[in-house]
C-alpha cells in the first residue's frame, strides 16, 4: 500500500541510527569523558567545550547522554525481548491447546492487566531492590500480556487450516508446529507491538531511574540524568531539557516506525 510517507519514518530511522551508534560506540570511546569531573566548569551552560552543558560535578552532559544510550535503549530492547518470549509462550500455548489451559492462561493475562504497570513494577522493585537487571526483569515480566493476546489470536485463526492439519497428520509435535508454521505468520503484528514496546520500556526505565529506583548512579541512564535535572531545576535548564528531549525523540521515533510498519 503506497501512501505519501512524508519525512517521519526517514527522520526516525536516522535518529534511531544515531542512538544505536551511541549505544555501541560511546561507552568505548567516551567513558573517560563521561566520568571526568571538570571542577572548573561545574554547572556550565552549553558552550563550545561542552555542547550540552555540565552537571553539578562538572561532567559533560553530551558524553553522559551518549553513554546512557546503551543503558536506556539496552534495557528497553532486552526487556521487550523477554516480554516477547513470555508472551509468545503464553499466547501460543493458550491458542494451540485450548480448553482449560487456554482459560487458565487467559485468566492470568486478564489478572495481570488489572495492575497499573508502574505500581506492579515498583512493588517488585521494592522487594527485589533496584538495579539494571532487576529493571529489565520487571519490565519484561509485566509487559507480555499484549503479545500473548496477539499470538493467541493468530494461533486460533490458523489452527484449523489445512497445512496445520497436514503437519499434524505427518506426526509433527505441537512445539514444532508452533515454531515452524504458526509463529512466522504471527510475526507482523508482533513486530509492531515489539517496536512500540521498546518505546514504552524506555519511558518506563527512565521513569524508574528518575525516581531513583531504576538504574543506579554512577551508571548513567537517561532517566537518572533527569534526576540531576530535578535537583537543579531553575538553575541549570539544560540538565532537564536535554535528557528529556532525547527520551522523547527516541520514543517518538519508535512510535513513528511502528506506525509505518502497520
Amino acid at each position: 500500500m503506497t501512501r505519501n510517507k512524508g519525512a517521519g519514518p526517514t527522520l526516525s530511522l536516522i535518529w534511531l541510527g544515531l542512538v544505536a551508534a551511541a549505544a555501541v560506540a560511546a561507552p568505548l570511546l567516551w567513558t573517560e569523558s563521561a566520568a571526568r569531573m571538570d571542577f572548573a566548569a561545574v554547572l556550565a551552560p552549553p558552550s563550545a567545550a561542552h555542547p550540552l552543558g555540565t552537571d553539578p560535578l562538572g561532567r559533560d552532559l553530551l558524553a553522559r547522554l551518549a553513554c546512557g544510550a546503551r543503558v536506556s535503549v539496552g534495557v528497553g530492547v532486552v526487556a521487550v525481548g523477554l516480554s516477547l518470549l513470555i508472551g509468545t509462550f503464553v499466547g501460543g500455548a493458550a491458542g494451540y491447546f485450548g480448553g482449560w489451559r487456554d482459560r487458565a492462561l487467559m485468566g492470568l493475562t486478564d489478572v495481570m492487566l488489572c495492575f497499573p504497570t508502574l505500581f506492579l513494577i515498583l512493588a517488585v522493585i521494592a522487594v527485589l531492590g533496584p538495579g539494571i537487571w532487576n529493571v529489565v526483569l520487571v519490565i519484561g515480566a509485566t509487559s507480555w500480556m499484549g503479545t500473548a493476546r496477539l499470538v493467541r489470536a493468530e494461533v486460533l485463526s490458523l489452527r484449523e487450516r489445512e497445512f496445520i492439519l497436514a503437519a499434524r497428520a505427518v506426526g509433527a509435535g505441537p512445539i514444532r508446529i508452533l515454531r515452524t508454521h504458526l509463529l512466522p505468520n504471527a510475526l507482523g503484528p508482533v513486530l509492531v507491538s515489539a517496536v512500540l514496546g521498546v518505546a514504552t520500556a524506555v519511558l518506563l526505565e527512565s521513569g524508574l531511574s528518575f525516581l531513583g529506583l531504576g538504574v543506579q548512579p554512577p551508571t548513567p541512564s537517561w532517566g537518572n540524568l533527569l534526576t540531576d535535572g530535578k535537583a537543579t531545576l531553575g538553575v541549570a535548564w539544560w540538565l532537564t531539557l536535554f535528557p528529556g528531549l532525547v527520551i522523547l525523540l527516541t520514543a517518538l521515533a519508535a512510535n513513528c516506525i511502528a506506525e509505518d510498519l502497520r
Partner: protein
Amino acid sequence: MRSRALGGYALRRLVQIVPTLIGIAFVCFFVIQLAPGTAVDARAQMNPKMTLQARERLTQLYGLDRPLPEQFGRWITRVARFDFGRSFVDGETVTRKIAAAAPVTLLVNGLSLLVILVFGVPLGVLGAVRQGTAADRAATGVALVGFALPTFWLALVLMSLFGVTWRFLPVAGLHSLDYESLAPAARLADTARHLVLPVFVSSLTGLAGISRFMRASMLEALAQNFIRTARAKGLSERSVVVRHALRNALLPVVTLLGLSIPGLLGGSVLFESIFSLPGMGRLFYLSVYARDYPVIMGLLFLGAALTLLGNLLADLAYAWVDPRIRLK
C-alpha cells in the same frame, strides 16, 4: 425496563469479578514471596536495605515461615476484610493511611478524566470532520508527541517555567501555606490553582489516546450507510455529524475512559512526587523507598481492584447506552 435489566446484568458481572480479584490477591501474594528470606533466598544478597528486623516483621506479618497454602489462606481472608496490617514506618493501619491519601488522587485523576473527555472528544471529531487538512495533521502530530512524551519530564519543565520563571501558578502541594485563614471561596480557588499543572500533565497521554480513537471512530461512523440516509432526508450537515455520526462514534469512548484508569494511577506515582501532592501515588513512592511492605501491598491490591472496578463501570455504561446490547 432497561434499567432493571441493567441491574441484573451488573450483579452478574460483579459475581464474575470475584475470581479475578482472587487472582489479583494471588499475584500480590506472589510478589511478597519474592522477598528475601523466604522463597528466593539468593535475593537477600542483592537487597542490602532489607534489615534483619524488617525481615522478621515481614515473616511475622505474612506468616512467611508457614507452609505456602496456609500463607495464602491467611492472606486472602485478611484481604477480604481489608486488613493489610500496619505500616512499618509509623505503625498506622494501612487502611487508614490509604484512606487519608485516596481523596487527593481521586480528585486529580477524576479531573484528568474530565479534561480528557472534554478536550479529547472534540479534538478527535475535528480531526475526522476536517480529515486531511492542516488542522487534522497538526492534531495527529500533537497526539503522536503526546504518546511519546515522558510526562514527568514535561512536569519538570512546567515546574521550572511556572515556579521559577513565570511564577503565577504554584508548583508544590495542594494548598498554600495560609490556606486555613482563607474564606471558603478563596480556598476553592487556591486548591484549583494548585491543581492546574498536575491535572494538565496527568491528562496528556489519555488526551492523545482519546482524540486519536475518537477520530478513527468518527471516520468509521461517517462511512456507514445510515449517514447516507440522514443526508437523503435533507438534514443539515451539522445534524448529520452530531445527531447521527457522533452519537454512534461516542459509544466505545466510554469503555476507553474506563481503560485509562490504570494509566492515570500509575502516572500519579510520578506526578504526585514531583508536585508534592499527598496522594496514593506519593504514598506508594515513599513506601517503596522505606520498604514499607504492608502499605505497598495494600496499594498494589487497591490499584488493581480500582482498575477492575473501572473496567466494570465502563462495561456497564456501554451496555446501558448501546441499545443493541442485550442484557439477558
